[in-house]
């Protein structure tokens, strides 16, 4: 048995992580699942949430959104549209942006386009807030 799991975290713009770890807990669309070394081939879509990387007793928590996880014999790769380490999320900033979005939505004379964007942004922000 391999002792370590090879874990890749990539976003469209760059590779965020590529290392050997002990375990990764991934927020799947149908529930959180843990991946240990030598996991069976598996593919799942991601739900917005916190991905936890455990290595040598240390834990790293990363907020991910939109994408999927793939387990192959070569390891686990997570393709996320967005990935931010949880400690870099700023609760206050998120709360402020949520307020701004809600104001945008409350405003009646905005175009459908801005409204759609604001709604999307709001949903997204709430997910982030929940992750904290």
């Amino acid at each position, binding site marked *: 048995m391999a002792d370590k799991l090879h874990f*890749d975290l*990539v*976003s*469209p*713009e*760059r*590779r965020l992580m590529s290392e050997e770890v002990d375990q990764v807990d991934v927020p*799947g*669309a*149908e529930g959180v*699942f843990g991946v240990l070394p030598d996991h*069976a*081939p*598996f*593919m*799942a*879509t991601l739900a917005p949430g916190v991905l936890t990387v455990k290595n040598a007793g240390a834990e790293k928590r990363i907020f991910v959104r*939109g*994408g*999927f996880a*793939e387990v*192959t*014999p*070569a390891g686990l*790769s997570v*393709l996320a*549209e967005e990935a931010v380490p949880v400690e870099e999320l700023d609760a206050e900033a998120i709360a402020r942006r949520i307020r701004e979005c809600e104001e945008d939505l409350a405003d009646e004379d905005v175009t459908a386009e801005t409204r759609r964007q604001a709604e999307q942004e709001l949903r997204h922000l709430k997910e982030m807030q929940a992750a904290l």
Partner: protein
Amino acid sequence: MPSLKALKNRIDSVKSTKKITKAMQMVASAKLRRAEDAAKAARPYTERMEAVLANLAASAKDNPAAPKLLAGTGKDDAHLLIVATADKGLCGAFNSSIVRLARERIVKLQGEGKTVKIICVGRKGYDQLKRLYADLVVWRTDFLGVRRISFGEAQEIAARVLEMFDKREFDVAAIFYGKFKSVISQVPTAQQIIPAVAPEGAAPPDLKGAIYAYEPDEEEILKTLLPRYVSVQIFRALLENVASEMGAKMTAMDNATRNAGEMIDKLTLQYNRARQAQITKELIEIISGAEAL
């Protein structure tokens, strides 16, 4: 024969042009490096995505319920062309060659009696296409205010394209962009993005005999994956386009700088000759004046 002063002015103006083109070349080469880095950084994601899609597409191919984004609408009547060009000129034939490729396609499709719609990404493409096909352009966008193209921009375009696809406004979509081969060679390329073409050369991972488990099932995954794949392909095309634009600009500006240098040499020679002729003439005047006395 132009006067000495006119020649002098001319030389000065060519010199300052040369300075500008030289500076533009250097800026382009710095930007090219950045664009190449961005394209390189985006590669792992694209490769993974392609591997996953190749894997799923192979098993979904025979499924009649396969998503339309993969299997197509079953028709081939309306085509959407996404023409990605630069926002700025001064990069040689870069923009025109992409537009030419798109135009050839439009003429061909229209000749076959198909409907053509165009999305212009980048200002220059629109400027060139609007003369002939202004009524075909359904939407256009540019990145004039954007310093670095991020995935967000690609997603915005993809969202637009997918929305049109959902409304059955087209059957086949292709993106036109400049593929970056090297600094001196950019190949205008048309790439079909809808229906999705399973990427070549992306080998499914070796599972050592094991079978994939899917969560949720394969169809659900394909459904979320395909729209993303469209964004990813657009994103990659845009990144390549930026790299190509900068490459083309570098080459064009390098040529311009060299031409300016040659012109300066030629003009300087002319200037010196004219000066020499004037001196000789003055001497002759003085000498013949002295002889006459």
